[in-house]
């Protein structure tokens, strides 16, 4: 059994909560006491139906205001896969939450209401998924029961979405006509839409091929922690602990350590369960080298002929996440990139992107909450970086305000030099 992380985007109106509730219920991941609690609260509030949004709206403020504020994580499993859902609110004022939920997603599920055709919101969701390089996209055209299970309605929406997505270098795209309320095409194929020849949503989620989404080519191992027991049993042990970001490492491989540029060979790859013959993402391992080198947290192990840039000039798309102060040219921030921390100054804001129209505003002077723009940064120490499109781990960073310590931005590297 493997693990699939997916993000859902859409608003309550699109039937997103109903869809999640349906997936949880039909996979027996929704428990009787949870359902009873939701039914009781729904009844007390005078809702006409059991409001499944209450399942994921876990905070007092969310239930009081009837809105989803933050990302909620939900879990379910089938015999084939374990699933982690990052359920994100869909409105534009929650762009940062959607960016957050998408950052680790293998797949994004975008919901549209069959009666409304494509709205600005769906385009925005598609854009954000492509920005975050979510490898698989599923468009669920929901409420098919309310359009008479019409094939032409479905195809019109799916075609329009596909042509929009094509402009975004969007990844693998699948469109499924569903009725979350009645369960059509959720777990099993719908008898109401015999014209639909594809799989049900759950069938697709269980089988979508994610193994090759990982980058197994570029060896990148950010050193997290140096293990030195200095005990009588392990007097000279020195191992470099971390999680493989990409590539495959094997004992005997020649490796290079950045930023020093020294080379060595992998003596062994170890775990508490014993040595392993190879390490690949997402394994957490400890690497030992044949030579004594000065390596510390924030360094990176790669191959001599395939290394990331060691760069202080970084061009990146930045999504701003702070409501108190906008990103400004000349601003100084802390950066966390892999296991490395640096400081950075914003040299230039090349443009701000309108995430609904994709129009570039080159006269913008700052990025406010939920705004996205292309930014040039100069860092105090080199970042060991790849383009985000090639590597989500060595290509992503967060921006931290040094006075408040809040995480104020998320960056996706376009160019590092």
């Amino acid at each position: 059994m493997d693990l699939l992380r997916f993000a859902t985007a859409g608003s309550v109106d699109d039937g997103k909560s109903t869809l999640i509730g349906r997936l949880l219920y039909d996979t027996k991941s929704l428990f009787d006491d949870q359902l009873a609690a939701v039914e009781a609260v729904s009844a007390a509030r005078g809702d006409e139906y059991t409001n499944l949004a209450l399942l994921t709206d876990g905070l007092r403020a969310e239930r009081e205001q009837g809105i989803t504020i933050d990302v909620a994580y939900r879990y379910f499993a089938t015999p084939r896969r374990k699933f982690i859902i990052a359920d994100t609110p869909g409105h534009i004022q929650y762009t940062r939450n959607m960016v957050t939920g998408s950052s680790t997603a293998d797949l994004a599920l975008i919901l549209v209401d069959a009666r409304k055709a494509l709205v600005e919101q769906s385009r925005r969701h598609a854009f954000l998924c492509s920005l975050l390089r979510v490898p698989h996209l599923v468009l669920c055209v929901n409420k098919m029961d309310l359009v008479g299970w019409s094939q032409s309605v479905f195809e019109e929406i799916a075609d329009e979405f596909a042509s929009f997505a094509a402009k975004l270098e969007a990844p693998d795209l699948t469109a499924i006509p569903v009725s979350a309320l009645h369960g059509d095409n959720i777990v099993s194929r719908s008898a109401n839409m015999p014209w639909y020849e594809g799989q049900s949503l759950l069938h697709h989620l269980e089988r979508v091929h994610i193994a090759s989404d990982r980058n197994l080519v570029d060896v990148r191992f950010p050193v997290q922690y140096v293990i030195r027991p200095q005990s009588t049993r392990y007097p000279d042990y020195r191992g470099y602990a971390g999680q493989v970001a990409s590539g495959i490492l094997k004992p005997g491989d020649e490796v290079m350590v950045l930023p020093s540029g020294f080379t060595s060979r992998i003596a062994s790859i170890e775990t508490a369960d014993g040595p392993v013959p190879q390490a690949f993402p997402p394994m957490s391992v400890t690497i030992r080298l044949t030579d004594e080198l000065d390596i510390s947290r924030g360094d990176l192990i790669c191959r001599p002929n395939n290394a990331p840039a060691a760069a202080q000039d970084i061009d990146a798309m930045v999504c701003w996440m702070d409501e108190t102060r906008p990103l400004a040219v000349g601003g100084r921030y802390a950066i966390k990139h892999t296991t490395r921390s640096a400081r950075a100054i914003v040299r230039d804001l090349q443009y701000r992107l309108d995430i609904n129209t994709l129009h570039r505003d080159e006269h913008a002077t700052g990025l406010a909450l939920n705004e996205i723009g292309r930014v040039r940064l100069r860092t105090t120490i080199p970042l060991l970086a790849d383009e985000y499109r090639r590597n989500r781990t060595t290509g992503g960073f967060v921006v931290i305000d040094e006075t408040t310590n809040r995480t104020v931005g998320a960056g996706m590297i376009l160019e590092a030099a």
Partner: protein
Amino acid sequence: MVAAPAYRVSHLEALEAESIFVLREVIAEFARPVLLFSGGKDSIVMLRLAEKAFWPAPIPIPVMHVDTGHNFAEVLAFRDQRVDELSVPLVVASVSEALDAGLVHEPADGSRNRIQTPVLLAAVEKYRFDALFGGARRDEEKARAKERVFSFRDEFGQWDPKNQRPELWALYNGRIHPGESIRVFPLSNWTELDVWHYIAREGLALPSIYYAHDREVVQRDGMLYAVHEFFRTRPHERPFVARVRYRTVGDASCTAAVRSTADTVAKVIEEVAATRITERGATRGDDRVSEAAMEDRKREGYF
């Protein structure tokens, strides 16, 4: 090209790798972390992950238990034994001592659940802990489903659910000012069933009360509470013997048992997979206070 299926890990291995990453991040970035260890199954799994994360070095931080004085004796014995085996320092923050010192007062209902919080916070201040590992999981409870892996607490130990730091990729922001701290939840993405599968895989020992045994209980609010020195039975409540086990382990005063014949790990996994009631819903009186009981306690600085 090499065939892809060779480079795959199971969901349990992926969860383990993620948790080990989180544990190492904290040890690398914080000055005085501590791991909260109650002798319950989640903290036993977390301690095992810490053991694996730093192997062959010993676990580099102390563990702490907030002892309400109302714990099951089997669990305390297990706690001490496990800490001995691993030779990690144990800090006990004692609610009974705090009551004697007047820091907290015995609540009228006899449950010390809520007064654990000031005792925990006093210990954090005394030992100047800046990061506290907790075994909480997001599948346990709806407020926890919204909490970050690195959960910021202000100088009063309070959680502000509306002002959480965005958490992207595996980039955890652990920056704090003096007096503030971070609660870290390495098991955030694990479910109850994952925990049991891992216990089976690692061959982890658990306190005996997690497995089916005969126990004298009373029925209250649809739940079975052990007749215990720290549990006040009411006059109309008739004790009877039932075959039960504990799904969660907390205070004897607010943790209920469930009817069960599962006396092995394999049988517990079967039982958990088939159950229709959540773990806390089946066993925790403390969550039943209100719709937002957990959120309210967490705001005050609860685990």
